[in-house]
């Protein structure tokens, strides 16, 4: 793919510095280019910039290109586009754009300083997969290290946002801090000061990025590989300390205050329930060590979803897998069971949605995410579209089935129910309605949806466990297929169909040594597109085995 320059540049040739900026349309690449031109001209350089505007700027990949040379009283002949193997500095405003620059041959080990923001802007093709379609950032970082002379990467978007600015300012800071251009820091700052809007925020973003890049530049070459590449955190930094098994000491860590207990571990509620919770934690602590972490996560999810009794059910179910399991397999089966049992038990019904949307923690999160400050008032509108299916699911089993069995009645009710509803959860009526629906939680286990879900769970779980003696890995894969079930309404129905289709492959691969591998492949295919066309193709392959 890399169409390398086939002719080396002659030694000691040109004084022209060549700089290319690869950005995503809308990132302000033009502003950055203008600043760089300004800095160069302030430093007695002649400079020229070009770009290809047009529709590519509408969220597509764009290139800005700058050439500059010291002013010797004569106008150099500057080129109008970057050439492979002929770029001194490449600025990528997003990590995949750095990848694109490398692919296009604009980054070469003999000369290119690659300055890239390590954050990601997912392309449409990455977002629309039902599974995780995001590109592999690590591969781009690895290529960037190999392809560049120097590689400076950190999250410049984050720096800009923290400073209340935009990425062009932090990119300029990183460029200045890298020392790749022979211009002084003050000159860059003067260029920013000459602007009209957001000068203060731009300067702050510039300074923060300058320091980061300068740090990186001053470290020794052999440290570079380590210090330069600060991979973006895969998970937010905060750690859930309240859930360490070691901390579960039967509730002694909790204080009782007026009937409500607040524990150090971040759980609160009636004293009896807190005690019950610790009893269940103690039960988890007796599980095999590798299973515990996932079991605690699962248990918490299940108890939060319903109640302690549901948590006990969860642990009982989990015990069934553990009984089949052993350390020799690293308890993979039990870990998968701990994860997917919890997800299966916490199906998404109207009660859950209403419950989650009426919690105080949710209100706080929305305010934080929206950034409500001062005395500003926040109004929150929810988008619901209930159908007869959801309505019946929230009925007692017999009543729900009664309606479902009568299509005329169901259609009649559907006409009254099935429409989009906007609910204001900052208003009393909207909130109270959802609050009451959330309160149906107490009766959930008597409702139709629960019966349906339990039946499905039992079938799936029994199927998985039935494979353990013959093919342990296959049993784990069957458990993992639960990942396919997600979404609401039609999407949920489609997910179920994919789940069934993947498991239909079981009959075909049963008995093969690589059966588990095939089920994994089928599952991955199912996550590649909406309708499951890849899955159908994969199933055909399996059928032909």
């Amino acid at each position, binding site marked *: 793919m890399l169409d390398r320059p086939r*002719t080396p540049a002659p030694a000691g040739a040109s004084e022209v510095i060549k700089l290319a900026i690869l950005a995503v349309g809308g990132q302000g690449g033009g502003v950055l280019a203008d600043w760089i031109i300004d800095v160069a001209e302030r430093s007695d350089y002649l400079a020229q910039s070009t770009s*290809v505007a*047009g529709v590519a700027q509408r969220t597509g990949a764009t290139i800005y290109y700058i050439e500059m040379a010291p002013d010797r009283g004569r106008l150099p002949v500057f080129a109008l586009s970057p050439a492979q193997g002929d770029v001194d500095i490449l600025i990528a405003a997003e990590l995949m754009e750095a990848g694109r620059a490398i692919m296009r041959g604009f980054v070469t080990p003999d000369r290119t300083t690659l300055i890239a923001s390590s954050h990601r802007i997912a392309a449409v093709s990455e977002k629309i*997969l039902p599974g995780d379609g995001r590109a592999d950032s690590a591969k781009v970082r690895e290529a960037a290290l190999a392809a560049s002379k120097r590689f400076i990467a950190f999250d410049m978007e984050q720096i800009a946002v923290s400073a209340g600015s935009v990425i062009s300012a932090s990119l300029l800071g990183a460029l200045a801090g890298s020392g790749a251009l022979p211009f002084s820091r003050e000159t860059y700052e003067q260029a920013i000061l000459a602007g009209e809007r957001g000068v203060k925020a731009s300067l702050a973003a510039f300074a923060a990025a300058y320091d980061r890049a300068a740090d990186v530049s001053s470290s020794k070459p052999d440290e570079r590989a380590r210090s330069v590449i600060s991979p973006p955190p895969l998970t937010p930094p905060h750690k859930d300390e309240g859930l360490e098994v070691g901390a579960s000491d039967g509730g002694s860590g909790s204080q009782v205050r007026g009937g409500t207990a607040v524990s150090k571990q971040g759980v609160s509620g009636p004293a009896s329930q807190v005690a019950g919770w610790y009893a269940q934690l103690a039960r988890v602590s007796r599980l095999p060590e590798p299973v515990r972490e996932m079991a605690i996560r699962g248990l918490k999810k299940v108890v939060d979803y319903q*109640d302690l009794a549901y948590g006990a059910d969860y642990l009982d179910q989990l015990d069934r897998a553990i009984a089949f399991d052993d350390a020799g397999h690293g308890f993979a089966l039990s870990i998968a069971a701990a994860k997917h049992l919890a997800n299966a038990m916490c199906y998404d019904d109207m009660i859950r949605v209403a419950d*989650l949307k009426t919690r105080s923690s949710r209100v706080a999160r929305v305010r934080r995410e929206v950034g409500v400050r001062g005395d*500003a008032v926040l109004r929150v509108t*929810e988008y619901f579209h209930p159908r007869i299916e959801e309505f019946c699911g929230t009925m007692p089993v017999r009543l729900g089935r009664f309606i479902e069995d009568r299509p005329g009645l169901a259609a009649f009710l559907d006409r009254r129910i099935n429409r989009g509803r906007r609910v204001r959860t900052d208003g009393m009526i909207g909130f109270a309605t959802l609050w009451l629906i959330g309160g149906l939680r107490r009766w959930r286990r008597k409702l139709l949806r629960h019966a349906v879900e339990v039946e499905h769970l039992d079938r799936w779980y029994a199927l998985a466990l039935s494979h353990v003696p013959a093919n342990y890995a296959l049993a784990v894969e069957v458990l993992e297929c639960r990942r396919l079930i997600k979404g609401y309404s039609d999407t949920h129905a489609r997910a179920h169909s994919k789940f069934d289709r993947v498991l239909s492959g079981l009959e075909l691969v049963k008995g093969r040594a690589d059966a588990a591998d095939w089920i994994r492949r089928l599952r991955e295919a199912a996550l590649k597109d909406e309708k499951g066309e890849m899955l159908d193709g994969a199933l055909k392959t399996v059928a032909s085995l």
Partner: protein
Amino acid sequence: MAERSFVKEVEKLRLGEGQEFAGEGILAITKALLQCGVGYVGGYQGAPISHLMDVLADAQDILGELGVHFEASASEATATAMLAASVHYPIRGAATFKSTVGTNVASDALANLASGGVTGGALIIVGEDYGEGSSIMQERSHAFAMKSQVWLLDPRPNLPSIVKAVEDGFELSEASNTPVMLLVRIRCCHVHGRFVAKDNKRPTMTVAEALSAPRRDTGRIVLPPASFLHEKEKVEKRWPAAVDFIRSRKINEFFGPADGKVGIVCQGGMYNAVIRALQRLGLADTYGDTEVPLYVLNAAYPLVDDEFLTFCEGKDAVLVVEEGQPNYIEQSFAAMLHKAGRDTKVVGKEFLPMAGEYTGQVMLDGIGGFLRTHAAHLLPAAVRAPNTAGNGHDIPDLTRVVPGRPPGFCTGCPERPIFAATKLVEQELGKHHIASDIGCHLFSIMPPFELGATTMGYGLGPASASAFNSPEAKKRSISFVGDGGFWHNGLTSSIGNAVFNKNDGVIVIVDNYYSAATGGQDILSSRADNRTKATKHPITEAVKGMGVKWVRQIDRTYDVPKMRATLKEALTTGETGPKVIVASSECMLNRQRRERPLVDKAIKGGERVVKPRFGVDEDICTGDHACMRLSGCPSLSVKTLDDPLRDDPVAHIDQSCVGCGNCGEVADAAVLCPSFYRADTVHNPGGWDRFADAMRRKAIGMLQRLRERRRLTFADA
């Protein structure tokens, strides 16, 4: 209002003799027009010449002072027809548009203009949209110059050269009574550079003066027998006059040593890239001083035979650097040498690719190859026989990693919900034949929508569906046309045609209040007040006036259920004849540019302002991304949760959300999921707002505490 305001740049148009102008190439051309005493300017926007139109639109005061008439023409044909003012009157006129789409549209007027010839200088500035970043079919403007026999200037891509080309162009036009095309490529239009300005000149004759003393000359009108005389006049009088002018004024340039065994001829626009290749081959320095003789064609048509033949004297081989195909220049030169009985070899496409942009690497390889074959002795040893074949480094292949990033709808674009609704209708009624058109709405052909089968030209969406009209058909065709295309020529070519031919299809007119794809210029149906233009002409009235009976106006495209219902009705109604839906909402890019500063100011000023945005409840989102398959909004993306129980990333809406409402509407219309919420922040709330909010929060807090006292609550849940 245009996407960018050029109020600041416009001041540069006032610069006088000796002052330095610094700015974009396209602005330099604008300034050059005024320096040349242009009497009127017209044009049609489109990359890369939109800025020229935008600058002139913002420069009405200066133009008024000079007595220059400016028009934002209805189409490229209109702009070219406007040059008719230079036929009988000694007024310099200029028209501008992008090429080759503009030249296509302008051809009729261009041919008529060229036939009769001009008295005043007529300059057609074409922005050649070729190569990387181009949004149109890849063709050459050169052919248009040849077939109409108008002269084509292709100046070196730096500001002094293109400014000089404008001056030369007017003079050449007047000297040869022929319109002149000035070709500027995309990057040249956007190149940032400097030149020394001259004073602006009032036109020697203004259009007002011409109107008060009308002139006519039957001999200049395209009708037999004059038209036959015109053809002769072109070759007998105008062509030789043009060649004389080009030769005597030294429009074409020579660089490098006077003699040598090889030489390179290039189009003016290719000059910088040729020099860069020579620099990299060690045969030229930073300032373009070259060891290889260069013949630079700032006038690409007509060619000057004796100039070329003189250049070839004593040379074994000459390389013609001519971008695109067919290689008209190379063919002409070969014929010249053949007829002159010379044995100099002309090469071009042997070393350079027949098709595609001449990028830096292509030029390096091509010129390198030519010199290695024909003049290896010139090349430094390191270039002639490099020691290393590759670079010796192993760089991982990223072709399967890096995702493509085609252009798409902006955040909050009002066209997104139109296509979400179309996708939903297709889920219900099955696939339809969909004809697309030019404009932002063409992004519907990309994921996630993947709607639309053809695009045949601006305003021609419905016209391109006209064959799909049959009494036996079970399904109707759907076609799209934008408001820009509609006024450009869609009203007659598409709507009128559909009415006349009783087409039974569905036509959706995407009205975003501007010619949005070209930078947000006003058009007839724009809703803005415009000092110099008549706006606010409803599209529905025009459509009804054409005779369409079934017309629906949608005033908020974000209403996806309504959009879907209307489309469904159009596809299923018993009504015959074209079904036209006008879907209107303001272009969000322009709306934000207009409103954001006002909103920020109002908030700072203490005014009550409600600002919407959307969010996703991440614990309700299941990570199936169905919402994104109906959106593709840049602000709606995926995010990994810190939860080992969850395998797939969930939906997340970032700070760039403008609260257009598409997410919520689509979730509702497609019955997706209840995880979206709209959060309206009331800035500077009034007394009642605050009181009511306090009361509500108090009551809600009570209910929340009531429940939370009875259950376990996890701090991080």
